[in-house]
Protein backbone atom coordinates (compact mmCIF):
# COMPACT_ATOMS: atom_id res chain seq x y z
CA UNK A 1 0.00 0.00 0.00
CA UNK A 2 2.75 2.45 0.93
CA UNK A 3 4.23 2.31 -2.54
CA UNK A 4 1.10 4.10 -3.68
CA UNK A 5 1.63 6.94 -1.22
CA UNK A 6 2.71 10.27 -2.65
CA UNK A 7 5.67 12.10 -1.20
CA UNK A 8 3.24 14.31 0.71
CA UNK A 9 1.39 11.37 2.23
CA UNK A 10 4.67 9.73 3.24
CA UNK A 11 5.74 12.98 4.85
CA UNK A 12 2.54 12.95 6.93
CA UNK A 13 3.15 9.37 8.06
CA UNK A 14 6.76 10.06 9.06
CA UNK A 15 5.66 13.41 10.51
CA UNK A 16 3.11 11.62 12.71
CA UNK A 17 5.83 9.30 13.99
CA UNK A 18 7.98 12.34 14.76
CA UNK A 19 5.14 14.09 16.62
CA UNK A 20 4.52 10.94 18.68
CA UNK A 21 8.23 10.82 19.41
CA UNK A 22 8.30 14.40 20.62
CA UNK A 23 5.38 13.69 22.93
CA UNK A 24 7.03 10.54 24.22
CA UNK A 25 3.87 8.66 23.21
CA UNK A 26 4.19 4.89 23.07
CA UNK A 27 2.29 4.67 19.79
CA UNK A 28 1.27 6.77 16.83
CA UNK A 29 -2.37 7.75 17.09
CA UNK A 30 -4.91 9.43 14.82
CA UNK A 31 -4.17 12.65 16.66
CA UNK A 32 -0.55 12.46 15.61
CA UNK A 33 -1.68 11.97 12.02
CA UNK A 34 -3.87 15.05 12.26
CA UNK A 35 -1.09 17.18 13.74
CA UNK A 36 1.23 16.06 10.94
CA UNK A 37 -1.46 16.97 8.40
CA UNK A 38 -1.74 20.43 9.96
CA UNK A 39 2.01 20.80 9.50
CA UNK A 40 1.80 20.06 5.78
CA UNK A 41 2.32 22.83 3.27
CA UNK A 42 1.30 23.06 -0.37
CA UNK A 43 -0.37 19.67 -0.43
CA UNK A 44 -3.97 18.71 -1.09
CA UNK A 45 -4.70 18.35 2.61
CA UNK A 46 -2.93 21.60 3.47
CA UNK A 47 -4.99 23.50 0.91
CA UNK A 48 -8.25 21.94 2.09
CA UNK A 49 -7.48 22.55 5.76
CA UNK A 50 -6.56 26.14 5.01
CA UNK A 51 -9.66 26.69 2.87
CA UNK A 52 -11.83 25.36 5.70
CA UNK A 53 -10.13 27.61 8.23
CA UNK A 54 -8.77 24.71 10.25
CA UNK A 55 -5.12 25.64 9.90
CA UNK A 56 -5.60 28.91 11.72
CA UNK A 57 -7.80 27.24 14.34
CA UNK A 58 -5.16 24.70 15.18
CA UNK A 59 -4.98 25.80 18.83
CA UNK A 60 -8.72 25.31 19.21
CA UNK A 61 -8.51 21.89 17.56
CA UNK A 62 -5.71 20.85 19.87
CA UNK A 63 -7.72 22.06 22.87
CA UNK A 64 -10.71 20.00 21.78
CA UNK A 65 -8.52 16.92 21.48
CA UNK A 66 -6.92 17.56 24.87
CA UNK A 67 -10.39 17.83 26.42
CA UNK A 68 -11.39 14.50 24.87
CA UNK A 69 -8.16 12.88 26.07
CA UNK A 70 -8.85 14.14 29.55
CA UNK A 71 -12.04 12.10 29.64
CA UNK A 72 -10.12 8.99 28.71
CA UNK A 73 -10.32 9.51 24.96
CA UNK A 74 -14.06 8.97 24.94
CA UNK A 75 -15.84 10.67 22.08
CA UNK A 76 -18.92 12.82 22.60
CA UNK A 77 -20.97 10.00 21.08
CA UNK A 78 -19.59 7.59 23.67
CA UNK A 79 -20.20 10.05 26.49
CA UNK A 80 -23.81 10.34 25.34
CA UNK A 81 -24.16 6.57 25.15
CA UNK A 82 -22.91 6.28 28.74
CA UNK A 83 -25.23 9.07 29.85
CA UNK A 84 -28.07 6.94 28.51
CA UNK A 85 -26.99 4.28 30.97
CA UNK A 86 -26.96 6.82 33.74
CA UNK A 87 -23.18 7.13 33.79
CA UNK A 88 -21.95 10.66 34.13
CA UNK A 89 -18.48 10.67 32.56
CA UNK A 90 -17.71 14.24 33.63
CA UNK A 91 -18.34 13.27 37.22
CA UNK A 92 -16.15 10.20 36.99
CA UNK A 93 -13.34 12.25 35.46
CA UNK A 94 -13.66 14.81 38.25
CA UNK A 95 -13.54 12.12 40.94
CA UNK A 96 -10.55 10.37 39.40
CA UNK A 97 -8.69 13.65 39.03
CA UNK A 98 -9.45 14.52 42.66
CA UNK A 99 -7.57 11.43 43.75
CA UNK A 100 -5.01 10.94 41.01
CA UNK A 101 -4.39 14.43 39.74
CA UNK A 102 -5.40 16.41 36.66
CA UNK A 103 -5.30 14.47 33.41
CA UNK A 104 -5.11 11.12 35.22
CA UNK A 105 -7.46 9.49 32.73
CA UNK A 106 -5.67 11.04 29.79
CA UNK A 107 -2.62 8.93 30.47
CA UNK A 108 -4.74 5.81 30.11
CA UNK A 109 -2.67 2.70 29.77
CA UNK A 110 -0.12 4.64 27.74
CA UNK A 111 2.65 4.67 30.22
CA UNK A 112 5.59 6.37 28.57
CA UNK A 113 7.41 4.10 26.28
CA UNK A 114 10.72 2.77 27.43
CA UNK A 115 11.59 1.58 23.96
CA UNK A 116 11.17 4.61 21.73
CA UNK A 117 12.79 2.77 18.85
CA UNK A 118 9.65 0.76 18.46
CA UNK A 119 6.74 3.13 18.09
CA UNK A 120 3.88 1.29 16.40
CA UNK A 121 0.72 2.74 14.93
CA UNK A 122 -2.34 2.07 17.06
CA UNK A 123 -5.06 -0.16 15.67
CA UNK A 124 -7.20 2.91 14.97
CA UNK A 125 -4.47 4.86 13.21
CA UNK A 126 -3.67 1.82 11.07
CA UNK A 127 -7.30 1.77 10.06
CA UNK A 128 -6.98 5.38 8.92
CA UNK A 129 -4.09 4.40 6.66
CA UNK A 130 -6.15 1.52 5.26
CA UNK A 131 -9.16 3.74 4.81
CA UNK A 132 -7.07 6.23 2.83
CA UNK A 133 -6.54 3.54 0.21
CA UNK A 134 -10.27 2.90 0.00
CA UNK A 135 -10.97 6.62 -0.21
CA UNK A 136 -8.43 6.94 -3.00
CA UNK A 137 -9.96 4.04 -4.94
CA UNK A 138 -13.44 5.43 -4.36
CA UNK A 139 -12.37 8.73 -5.87
CA UNK A 140 -10.76 6.87 -8.78
CA UNK A 141 -7.43 8.46 -8.08
CA UNK A 142 -4.16 6.70 -8.70
CA UNK A 143 -1.97 7.75 -5.83
CA UNK A 144 -2.72 8.07 -2.15
CA UNK A 145 -2.13 11.69 -1.27
CA UNK A 146 -2.31 13.36 2.11
CA UNK A 147 -5.80 14.56 1.17
CA UNK A 148 -6.88 10.92 1.25
CA UNK A 149 -5.42 10.61 4.72
CA UNK A 150 -7.41 13.67 5.77
CA UNK A 151 -10.60 12.28 4.24
CA UNK A 152 -9.98 8.96 5.97
CA UNK A 153 -9.52 10.73 9.31
CA UNK A 154 -12.85 12.51 8.93
CA UNK A 155 -14.55 9.24 8.00
CA UNK A 156 -13.54 7.20 11.06
CA UNK A 157 -15.52 7.55 14.27
CA UNK A 158 -13.71 8.90 17.30
CA UNK A 159 -12.37 12.00 18.95
CA UNK A 160 -10.36 13.22 15.97
CA UNK A 161 -13.21 13.19 13.48
CA UNK A 162 -15.47 14.76 16.11
CA UNK A 163 -13.01 17.57 16.79
CA UNK A 164 -12.58 18.09 13.06
CA UNK A 165 -16.32 18.16 12.45
CA UNK A 166 -16.72 20.71 15.25
CA UNK A 167 -14.29 22.87 13.30
CA UNK A 168 -16.15 22.48 10.02
CA UNK A 169 -13.89 19.76 8.65
CA UNK A 170 -16.19 16.95 7.59
CA UNK A 171 -15.71 14.43 4.80
CA UNK A 172 -18.08 16.37 2.57
CA UNK A 173 -16.51 19.73 3.36
CA UNK A 174 -13.03 18.40 2.55
CA UNK A 175 -14.25 16.88 -0.70
CA UNK A 176 -15.83 20.17 -1.68
CA UNK A 177 -12.66 22.08 -0.83
CA UNK A 178 -10.61 19.62 -2.89
CA UNK A 179 -12.90 19.65 -5.89
CA UNK A 180 -13.21 23.41 -5.97
CA UNK A 181 -11.14 24.66 -8.92
CA UNK A 182 -8.03 26.31 -7.60
CA UNK A 183 -7.45 29.88 -8.56
Amino acid sequence: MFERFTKGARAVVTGAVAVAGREGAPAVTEEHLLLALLDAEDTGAALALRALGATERRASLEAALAAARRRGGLSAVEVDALADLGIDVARIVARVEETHGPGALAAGSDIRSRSPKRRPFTRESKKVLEQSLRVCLGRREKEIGDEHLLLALTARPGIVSEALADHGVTYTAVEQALDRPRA
Partner: protein
Amino acid sequence: MTDATDLAEQAGDRDPRVGLRAVAALRRLLEQLEAVQVRSARARGWSWQEIAAELGVSRQAVHKKHGRH
Protein backbone atom coordinates in the same frame (compact mmCIF):
# COMPACT_ATOMS: atom_id res chain seq x y z
CA MET B 1 -30.32 15.25 11.26
CA THR B 2 -33.94 16.31 11.01
CA ASP B 3 -36.30 16.40 13.96
CA ALA B 4 -38.32 13.60 12.40
CA THR B 5 -35.40 11.20 12.28
CA ASP B 6 -34.37 12.30 15.76
CA LEU B 7 -37.79 11.41 17.06
CA ALA B 8 -37.80 8.14 15.16
CA GLU B 9 -34.48 7.25 16.77
CA GLN B 10 -35.70 8.11 20.21
CA ALA B 11 -38.88 6.13 19.69
CA GLY B 12 -36.79 3.18 18.59
CA ASP B 13 -34.40 3.32 21.49
CA ARG B 14 -34.54 -0.44 21.73
CA ASP B 15 -32.26 -0.22 18.74
CA PRO B 16 -29.45 -2.65 19.61
CA ARG B 17 -26.92 -0.14 18.31
CA VAL B 18 -27.61 2.20 21.21
CA GLY B 19 -27.02 -0.52 23.76
CA LEU B 20 -23.97 -1.92 22.00
CA ARG B 21 -22.42 1.51 21.67
CA ALA B 22 -22.93 2.07 25.37
CA VAL B 23 -21.26 -1.23 26.20
CA ALA B 24 -18.29 -0.42 23.97
CA ALA B 25 -17.95 2.99 25.58
CA LEU B 26 -18.18 1.47 29.02
CA ARG B 27 -15.44 -0.98 28.16
CA ARG B 28 -13.17 1.86 27.06
CA LEU B 29 -13.89 3.76 30.24
CA LEU B 30 -13.22 0.63 32.27
CA GLU B 31 -9.84 0.13 30.59
CA GLN B 32 -8.84 3.70 31.39
CA LEU B 33 -9.95 3.39 35.00
CA GLU B 34 -8.09 0.12 35.38
CA ALA B 35 -4.91 1.71 34.03
CA VAL B 36 -5.20 4.60 36.48
CA GLN B 37 -5.72 2.28 39.45
CA VAL B 38 -2.96 -0.13 38.49
CA ARG B 39 -0.49 2.74 38.01
CA SER B 40 -1.48 4.14 41.36
CA ALA B 41 -1.07 0.79 43.11
CA ARG B 42 2.33 0.24 41.52
CA ALA B 43 3.40 3.72 42.59
CA ARG B 44 2.50 2.73 46.15
CA GLY B 45 4.66 -0.33 45.88
CA TRP B 46 2.02 -3.00 45.38
CA SER B 47 3.21 -6.21 43.77
CA TRP B 48 1.66 -7.51 40.57
CA GLN B 49 0.38 -10.43 42.60
CA GLU B 50 -1.48 -8.13 45.00
CA ILE B 51 -2.95 -6.08 42.16
CA ALA B 52 -4.01 -9.22 40.29
CA ALA B 53 -5.72 -10.60 43.38
CA GLU B 54 -7.80 -7.44 43.78
CA LEU B 55 -8.72 -7.38 40.09
CA GLY B 56 -9.60 -11.06 40.16
CA VAL B 57 -7.25 -11.98 37.32
CA SER B 58 -3.96 -13.84 37.10
CA ARG B 59 -0.68 -12.13 37.90
CA GLN B 60 0.50 -12.91 34.36
CA ALA B 61 -2.57 -11.28 32.85
CA VAL B 62 -2.19 -8.03 34.75
CA HIS B 63 1.56 -7.91 34.19
CA LYS B 64 1.21 -8.56 30.49
CA LYS B 65 -1.38 -5.81 30.17
CA HIS B 66 0.19 -3.13 32.32
CA GLY B 67 3.72 -4.21 33.09
CA ARG B 68 5.86 -3.86 30.05
CA HIS B 69 5.70 -0.36 28.65
